[in-house]
């Protein structure tokens, strides 16, 4: 039976990980996500389900512990915030190359550098374009509520294992820290049968399993790259998730994910009160990105405003999707500042003025 609780977003992720049957969590403290590790240590999942929790010596060590566990075919999760996620990039690149599944949570804070501990969406490029070296992508999920923080843990694991690729929950300090009610899934059992590729010990009836991202033969490495790209193509076909709000008759739409999408819902309402037919497209998967619905909306609407807590990163993917068919602009606050619904509507009105002039 599902269970209703009042929880912080970070705690919901931790509890959902236990209930999803995760085998291990490895992490290192950093604001605004330390509650994930703290909650797990307090909950003693090693007694509840046998799940392992370990505070690593660094984010670098943590992601490489994740690699080791994933290589054994286990469900492993790690979490951090922006500076720590930067440290995990080498490991994520290796995992994508070695085709290992895992779940990474980035509770984004403002950057660059040590930046601020306040919420931000400035790690979009890093999350959806690969982040580390080499041609690879992460599956990126963007929750907008504490409920989705919890729900996307199970979904993230499922997608990661389906495609043998790391998945990321890209969220921010606002969602991590805020409390909401959340329906939690029943406890799932931990896996007992492991994938055939896992390094669980070479029994006499099979060849040895080798987990590696290395191939010194360029043609083999190229083939491997083609195989990985084929998975990303399949994700684009089968895994795009998004939500459309008041888009049917919309003349202008906001494009926003996560916290910004939540705020934009109010902006849609305010704009409509002022006589503007506004709508919202909320990407739920940032990779794969909802290109098709945006392309279609590009034929219908007069303009799109990408609202992000950054200088404008996702806006580039919106532009690529509509490919010049309609004007796309960006509005954002940054450095930990959260935009108000009103200032977003003002930004929309300014965009409309500009469009009607030209």
């Amino acid at each position, binding site marked *: 039976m599902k269970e209703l609780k009042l929880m912080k977003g970070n705690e919901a992720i931790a509890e959902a990980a236990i209930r999803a049957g995760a*085998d*291990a969590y*490895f992490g290192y403290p950093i604001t605004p996500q330390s509650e994930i590790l703290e909650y797990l240590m307090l909950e003693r999942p090693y007694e509840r389900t046998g799940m*392992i929790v*370990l505070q*690593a*010596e*660094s984010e*670098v*060590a*943590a992601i*490489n*512990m*994740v*690699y*080791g*566990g994933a*290589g*054994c075919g*286990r469900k*492993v999760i790690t979490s951090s915030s922006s500076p720590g996620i930067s440290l995990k990039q*080498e*490991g994520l690149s*290796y995992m994508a190359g*070695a085709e290992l599944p895992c779940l990474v949570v980035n509770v984004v804070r403002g950057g660059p550098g040590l930046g601020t501990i306040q919420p931000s969406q400035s790690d979009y490029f890093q999350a959806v374009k690969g982040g580390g070296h080499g041609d690879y992508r992460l599956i990126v999920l963007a929750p907008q509520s504490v409920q989705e923080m919890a729900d996307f843990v199970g979904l993230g694991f499922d997608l990661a294992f389906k495609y043998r690729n790391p998945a990321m929950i890209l969220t921010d300090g606002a969602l991590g820290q805020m409390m909401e009610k959340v329906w939690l899934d029943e406890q799932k059992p931990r896996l007992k049968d492991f994938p055939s590729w896992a*390094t*669980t*010990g*070479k*029994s*006499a009836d099979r060849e*040895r*399993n*080798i*987990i*590696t*991202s*290395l191939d010194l033969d360029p043609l083999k490495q190229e083939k491997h790259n083609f195989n990985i790209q084929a998975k990303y193509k399949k994700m684009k076909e089968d895994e795009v998730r998004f939500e459309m709000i008041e888009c049917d008759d919309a003349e202008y739409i906001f494009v926003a994910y996560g916290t910004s999408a939540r705020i934009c819902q109010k902006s849609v309402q305010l704009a409509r009160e002022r006589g503007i037919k506004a709508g919202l497209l909320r990407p739920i998967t940032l990779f794969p990105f909802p290109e098709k619905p945006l392309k279609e909306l590009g034929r219908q609407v007069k303009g799109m405003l990408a609202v992000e807590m950054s200088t404008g990163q996702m806006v580039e993917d919106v532009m690529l999707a509509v490919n010049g068919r309609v004007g796309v602009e960006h509005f954002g606050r940054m450095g930990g500042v959260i935009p108000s619904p009103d200032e977003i509507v003002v930004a929309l009105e300014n965009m409309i003025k500009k469009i009607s002039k030209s």
Partner: protein
Amino acid sequence: MTKNITADDIVKEENLVYKKTPVLTDNVMHYCPGCGHGTAHRLIAEVIEEMNIQPETIGITPVGCSVLMYNYLDIDMQGAAHGRAPALATAVKRLMPEKFVFTYQGDGDLAAIGTAETIHACNRGENFTIFFINNGIYGMTGGQMAPTTLPEMRSSTSPYGRDVKMMGNPLKITELVARLPGTYYVTRQAVHTPVNVRKAKKAIRQAFESQKLKKGLSLVEIVSNCNSGWKMSPVQANKWMVENMFPFYPLGDIKLEGRLLNKE
């Protein structure tokens, strides 16, 4: 009339004094002739065979000349990023505590880029084994200075010899981790003579055996030559190793059953 002796007369079970362990694959090793890596691989494989733990053993390879070790051992293996093998092994062993887990790492991998992972895995007392091949140089990348490069020793990035004032001192990381409460068995061996090969094999066996006790990490350092990196013939390299490396990195047990042997 004397009968000619043919190969068939000799190759018989009763005459067999040595055979290649099946835990080693038939792949041709890529190591330079005279390099210690191949011998170390063989000893680990033989111990795995003798302990009958092939299905229970998971190895983690480093980045370094031994990056392709998984081509040579017929066991499940994972390739780590440079320096991170102890982090992988930590997870593998914690998730499968009944398995035998080892890392195999060079001196650059273990004592430079991976120092944090090494020290913390040792300090946490993770129940796996580290095989540490100390050749005093970065073999794979072409003979650059390693954290273990001796004072005055030449390398491609210390072409006039290691100037400790400028480049720092060599790091005796094995002595360092032996002092941590999490290590149970720490020893330094070599594989350049038959006597040393036998001793090293005994140490490798002891390291694997101690995993059963779950009393902490076991580390076997093997001081080895890198004749290519040192720009010497294999014979010269072994002589140089005995004369220069061994005085600085003395062979023998450093910690037994969790107790430091006070040699220094």
